[in-house]
């Protein structure tokens, strides 16, 4: 059987690689964002905010590439699902980048010193980072069981968020600091939501059916 459209499939692979590059960029910045919350040097936070423009450029490039492939190649079936999912995943990753910037903005405003709160943030960051790493593995290995597990794991981040906002927060006496902690917790919680969304897009690309809660396919 002769294989056709090799150039198209090379382009498709390259589009996926661009998404992986964007994902790795977000992954690196995520741990940095939580680390700089405790640093004295505010310059690190400024750099991280500035670096968000790189994330935005990567997302724009993915969108342009995807639109070009749709326009010129008229893709169908799994090829089309892959391209549409790349656009959506790039959007989620870009929003993750925004949330990382927002965490850096918090550091620009204030330094959080409460050890327990910082530990909670570190836990949320680790949970999110592991979800992102596993999304990559699940995608490479077409492992839908892992995808389902990742989607479930978002609840762990939500649980820590609830713990911070309904309990820990009342230990702070400073209203401004309380607000900044709440915002940081919310940014990390949203990052978890976006990773969950990425996992759902991968599920759709692989199976052709949207992920629904309780889905066993």
């Amino acid at each position, binding site marked *: *059987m*002769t*294989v*056709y*459209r090799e150039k*198209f*499939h090379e382009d498709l692979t390259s589009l996926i690689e661009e998404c992986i590059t964007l994902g790795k960029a977000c992954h690196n910045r995520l741990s940095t964002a939580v680390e700089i919350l405790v640093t004295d040097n505010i310059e690190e936070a400024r750099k991280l905010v500035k670096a968000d423009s790189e994330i935005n450029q990567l997302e724009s490039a993915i969108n342009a590439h995807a639109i070009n492939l749709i326009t010129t190649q*008229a*893709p*169908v*079936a*799994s*090829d*089309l*699902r892959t391209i549409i999912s790349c656009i959506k995943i790039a959007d989620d990753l870009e929003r993750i980048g925004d949330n990382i910037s927002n965490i850096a903005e918090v550091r620009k405003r204030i330094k959080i010193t409460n050890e327990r709160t910082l530990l909670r943030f570190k836990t949320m960051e680790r949970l999110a980072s592991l979800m992102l790493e596993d999304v990559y593995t699940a995608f490479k290995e077409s492992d839908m069981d892992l995808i389902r597990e990742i989607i479930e794991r978002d609840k762990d981040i939500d649980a820590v968020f609830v713990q911070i906002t309904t309990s820990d927060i009342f230990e702070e006496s400073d209203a401004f600091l309380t607000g900044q902690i709440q915002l940081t917790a919310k940014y990390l919680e949203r990052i978890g939501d976006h990773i969950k969304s990425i996992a759902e897009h991968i599920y759709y690309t692989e199976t*052709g*059916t949207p992920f629904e809660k309780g889905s066993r396919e």
Partner: protein
Amino acid sequence: MAELKNVQVNKQDTVDNKETESSSIIQTDKKVVFEAKNFNLWYGDNHALQDINLTFHENDINAIIGPSGCGKSTFVKSMNRMTELVPIVRTEGNIEFRGDDIFKSGMSVEELRTRVGMVFQKPNPFPKSIYDNVAYGPRVHGIKKKSILDEVVEKSLRSASIWDEVKDRLNDNAYGLSGGQQQRICIARTLAVEPEVILMDEPTSALDPISTTKIEDLMQELKKDYSIIIVTHNMQQAARVSDRTSFFYQGYVVESDDTNVIFENPNDKRTEDYVSGRFG
């Protein structure tokens, strides 16, 4: 030996597909117009169609897709018994039209071809006037009265969306029209004998994009009154115009389903590879 092995593998695949197909029978209230039951066709020793089982419903546009030589045109031609014109052809199994086996001895080929019209790849108007082209069928059926013929010609040309373009030059030779117009004249000629089914064998492959769009729009209008079965090499056309799509490969039906399933999430990898352009 290697070829024989391939055939055996394909047969096994087809058995698997039959199971898939039977488990996803589409529930519809529409009446069945055509049904192929274990239909086989040979050109001499070449087994061109193998165990074809397909059902076509009223007012549906059914697309048949597949690579060159897969048997799609042969199948469509079998539906109004045009393959009989080839001396070495032999068939087994049935094709039923409205429940009647089209190959049974009492079936009139003339009546079948009246009820099942055909439009070909290249426009093939007769070297006559536009009017005479469309009136040809009704005249053969014995209609002589000018007023009735006028009415049939106008109605058919209107149904084929070409009346406004030719109404002032009905006596001009049809050869003077553009390719797209000639094809619509051929469709009007088919409609003039009031068929129930229109078979189209790559009806737009010789046409420019605008003419193609006009024929595709016309098909959407025609499906209100007719059942259409179209063979096309243009995958996007099949995706755009049809309700159901059947994928033929090496003489078998690999998959037949709603068009959106075939183009969005087909069950068989060969279908996915074909509609994605990975082979052809």
